């Protein structure tokens, strides 16, 4: 199961949009939940007149059987006090549907980084102990950086460390609950700030792709790096993210 956390810059959600749009995933269901602000619109992944009039709501599930992939997309913010009920319901669904592993795409406030985190890659991962056993080695090979823990009481006691994901929404809650429930979960996150987060979304899905190989990444001849950016398909709903066109009367 691949899903986003509603987090800073909505990077996880944008990433999921790219995955669903590029892989042409089919909608298989939705969550009828009181934990998210209601919203509805027409199909955000429409490519033509024929498929543009299907209604879409705030929490929907898509699947791609060929890759045994199920994706949950969340499209609106959480209602106050509803984080925990949502996480509990979600994780019990994960268990009851015998989902093998869960990957959460998320983000964290870039301004909260410490001196070391300011250097190098802004991408991080986390694995629950059950998943660590299975793929920990792969993470080493990919040279990925694990999310650092921070001091629980900075300035007073530097030895006690806790996981802190500012701006991550339900990420930390999902992760800690999964650890205690023995669920195989990975969190992939990027440090970012609010703004035009499309490049952040591309960075995050490319990161995901290094592991899951969802799409083929072309080796770029100019700088020898694998960069799949051009292979991801932007959904039609990303039009006009920053407002309408300018009225000619302005000039």
């Amino acid at each position: 199961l691949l899903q986003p956390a509603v987090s800073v810059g909505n990077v996880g959600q944008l990433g999921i949009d790219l995955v669903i749009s590029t892989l042409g995933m089919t909608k298989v269901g939705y969550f009828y939940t009181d934990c998210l602000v209601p919203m509805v619109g027409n199909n955000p992944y429409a490519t033509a007149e024929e498929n543009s009039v299907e209604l879409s709501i705030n929490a929907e599930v898509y699947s791609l059987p060929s890759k045994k992939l199920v994706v949950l997309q969340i499209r609106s913010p959480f209602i106050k006090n509803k984080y925990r009920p949502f996480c509990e319901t979600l994780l019990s669904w994960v268990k009851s549907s015998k989902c093998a592993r869960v990957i959460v795409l998320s983000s964290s406030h870039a301004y909260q980084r410490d001196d070391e985190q300011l250097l190098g890659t802004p991408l991080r991962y986390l694995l629950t102990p059950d998943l660590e056993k299975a793929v920990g080695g792969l993470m080493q090979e990919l040279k990925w950086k694990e999310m650092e823990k921070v001091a629980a009481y900075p300035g007073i006691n530097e030895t006690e460390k806790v996981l802190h994901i500012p701006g991550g929404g339900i990420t930390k809650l999902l992760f800690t609950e999964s650890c205690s429930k023995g669920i195989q979960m990975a969190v992939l996150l990027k440090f970012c700030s609010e703004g035009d987060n499309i490049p952040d979304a591309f960075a995050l899905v490319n990161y995901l792709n290094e592991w899951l190989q969802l799409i083929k990444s072309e080796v770029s001849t100019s700088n020898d790096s694998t960069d799949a950016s051009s292979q991801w398909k932007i959904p039609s709903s990303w039009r006009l993210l920053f407002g309408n066109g300018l009225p000619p009367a302005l000039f």
Partner: protein
Amino acid sequence: MATFFGEVVVAPSRAGVDDEEEAREETPEDREIRRELERKREIDVLWTLKSGASTESSADEPFACSKFIVAIGRNAAAFLSSFILDSVCWEVVGVVKLWNEWCRTSSTTNVLPTDSFCLFYRLISDPTVLLCQCSCYVAEDQQFQWLEKVFGCMQKEGLQVTILSTCPVADYKTQESTLTLPSPFLKALKTKEFKEEVCCPLLEQPNIVRDLPAA
């Protein structure tokens, strides 16, 4: 984050998240306060029975309903008042009582157009046609409850629901200028079960509807 002048401010995030608050453990006092607030924010749907007495809707059987028209927001409610409702053909059959930071409705059915209210009317000549005028704002955390309590009272087989609502033109996303849009500017969303003709074009991506009309 630091602003241009060097002061540090906490920037609101689109994610709408305040995870510090969520992480804090609830004390018994917090729990009590939260429960009190929840009780205060509960919605009551009161139906007027044939005898004229008001009562809670809970245990009654769902009543037959073929068409349910819901007008959400002052403009839509005013539209119904001006063009549809009158005391000859329609009778008041219910009211929603709620409170939130923006408005409070009461259980009285005698309202002024400037009040916040949520009333149900029934067509006298065909009692399966129901109409709801909801000029009050139903808060995010109350929307689901409103939905369950109102629709919980009606039979859903063969039910056709029409929702009337308005949004500011400034929220409409389009490549063209909003100054040249035709008036009245109508857009629709429909479920695939709705087979009749829609009287106006469908809402194009990336526009969305939120809050109670969406619920």
